[in-house]
């Protein structure tokens, strides 16, 4: 029995010599394992985008040899002897096959191959911060606010439910590690911003796409708008106001304030100089009242803040001529 096993081991050992060169030629995009590699920049390109292609010859076996390129089965004479060039990828999901053949001065021909499957990996950022109802733009993340991120992948036939998502925010792995089908994640914006990254892999292995972005904390601002009791809020914000009638109502609208702070502010105060203010039940609204017989210029201020997260807050002032 032991002799039989020795024979099997010897056969397998000799077989590996025949299969190794074949495997050696079929390179993947994983570095450090193969000496001849075709590497793209970016590593996981998007469709219809210009990418850089580099032929990495770590073993220097091809030094002094000629380099021929074949793109999608077509020999490219314009890329003769080039180790790097730029090329435009195809449409979504349409693969591009790159082959490089090095014929050294002394030695056998070597071939490297890389198949690019251009894929869109979009990270859609949605912050849980407050913007007014008329605002057509997107709410931005600010310090301490919750941020929802959705990864949308286009260009692979694999359903997101069958993909592994590995999320990372700064140095922290979110969700404890790769999770199948988890293309959405929520985190709290730290001070100094967040570097968010995601790697999308097949369950059986093989990275499809990856992306890293930097999110900075948005500055929270307050803008003032005149309010008409019938027609609602003006569409242009005011930095200066001329009091024509006896009174006017203004609303202070914070932008990108954490929605929890907006709904329950520790500080939401109005201040005025040389102006009479009256307030109702809405802490973000005040009525400026003309004082009879007086003319001049005054100022109205508004301050909103979360006392537990002192950087969540803003203040602004409005000049009023009366």
């Amino acid at each position, binding site marked *: 029995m032991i002799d039989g096993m020795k024979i099997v081991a010897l056969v397998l050992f000799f077989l590996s010599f025949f299969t190794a060169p074949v495997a050696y030629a079929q390179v993947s995009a994983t570095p450090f394992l193969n000496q001849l590699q075709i590497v793209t920049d970016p590593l996981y390109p998007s*469709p*219809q985008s210009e990418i850089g292609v580099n032929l990495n010859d770590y073993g220097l076996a091809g030094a002094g040899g000629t380099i021929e390129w074949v793109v999608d089965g077509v020999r490219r004479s314009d890329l003769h002897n080039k180790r790097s060039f730029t090329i435009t990828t195809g*449409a*979504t999901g349409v693969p591009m096959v790159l082959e490089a053949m090095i014929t050294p001065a002394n030695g056998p021909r070597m071939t490297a191959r890389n198949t690019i499957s251009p894929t*869109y990996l*979009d*990270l*859609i*950022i*949605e912050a849980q911060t407050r913007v*007014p*109802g*008329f*605002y*057509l*733009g*997107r*709410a*931005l993340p600010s310090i301490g606010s919750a941020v*929802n991120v*959705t990864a*949308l992948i*286009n*260009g692979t036939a694999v359903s997101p439910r069958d993909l592994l998502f590995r999320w990372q925010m700064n140095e922290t792995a979110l969700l404890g590690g790769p999770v199948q089908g988890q*293309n*959405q994640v929520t985190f709290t914006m730290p001070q100094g911003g967040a570097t968010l990254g995601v790697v999308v892999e097949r369950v059986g292995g093989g990275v499809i796409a990856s992306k890293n*972005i930097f*999110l*900075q904390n*948005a500055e929270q601002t307050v*803008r003032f*708008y005149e309010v*008409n009791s*019938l*027609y*609602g*809020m*003006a*569409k*242009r*914000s005011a930095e200066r106001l001329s009091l024509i009638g006896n009174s006017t109502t203004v609303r202070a609208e914070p*932008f990108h304030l954490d929605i929890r702070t907006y709904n329950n502010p520790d500080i939401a105060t109005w201040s005025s100089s040389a102006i009479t203010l009256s307030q109702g039940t809405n802490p973000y609204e005040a009525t400026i009242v003309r004082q009879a017989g007086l003319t001049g210029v005054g100022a109205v201020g508004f301050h909103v803040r979360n006392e537990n997260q002192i950087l969540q807050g803003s203040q602004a002032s409005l000049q009023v001529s009366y």
Partner: protein
Amino acid sequence: MKKTFIIAGAVILVLMLAGLWIYMMFFGTPRTVEEVLPDFALWGEDGMPVQIPVIAPTTTAPLPMVNVNEKALRQLTTRPVAGYREVLKSASSTPELYYAEVGTGHIYSINLETGAEVRVSGTTIPEAVRADFSSDGRHVVIASGFSQGHTATIGELDASTGALTEVPFTDTLGDFRITEGGDLLYTHPSNTLTGKTFSLSNRTTRTLFTLPFRDATISWGERVTDTHFVYPRPTMELEGFGYAINNGGLTRLPLSGFGFSLFGNESLVGANFLDKNDFVSVFYNRSTRNLISSPVRLLPEKCTFGTKNKTIVWCGASLQATGFGFPDTWYTGEVGFSDDIYEISLTSTSSSLTLITDTLIETGREVDIVDLRVNPTETQLYFINKNDSSLWAYDLSR
């Protein structure tokens, strides 16, 4: 004796003068002789006071008239407008422009031939902010609520009686429009964003698509079955991406960037985004996959494709620099534009630009164009001036 008569006569005269004085003090100075005489009953055929005929005021005030014929570019309303549509009640009727007033939801009609404006519906829908009408004018959708979250009122309009009959509808509305075929397309925000259609004729609801993200803007197609386009709400701080929605599926377009927005039809997509620190606008041909540079800034709020000729685009655009922070600063109302109207003609490889009108020169006012539309015959452009929400028109046939 003679002396007595004189004194008596003088006393009587004094008493008469005193009585006259007292009368005039309490009853005022008569303006006309006729006003004096009846009080004394001195004239009249039968000695009775003369009756002054009372002229009854007319009960019908003349209709307010909108000048629809003076210039190609004209302001149609001073009332702020929540939404409008050129309607044709029947094939033989005169086109009318229906609009809903902000805040009240009252509906008015402007006869585009005579300029007469009438109030079609006085039903008040408080805090009306946006509206749309069906092409026959029979239905109106009004979103109300000055704060976040709009409730919807769908009404069936009887133009002859002014009655607005509410159609049962409970969903909250995001982006919406009514198609030419009489279907309401709308988004329903919840944990995700769902696109739905509500048939105004048979009052059934159907889900068209569900988006995995909520802060999205939809550019609706002309019909329910057309391609609709979606993108995350624009901001210069975050990247946006364009998608086409067909049969409930989301397909990524090769268009993306910071400050990204788009609008499109079945063959062309117009997009605006930040590229290397400057905003660029391009047209993307969905068939040939070519990108065509746009000579003016394309914003979905300020542009519209032709209804008959799909390769024509009209845009309100300004050549002034956007400044740092665009488009966020425009959405907050911090900056505004003084827009001109341009017509862009597209071929498969190029675009050509024609200036239609310089609004500042024509009107002396800054007009910040939003909600630009062209009528079905491509003879009129309509838009709202963001500065005061007034409704304007431009006659393309001149």
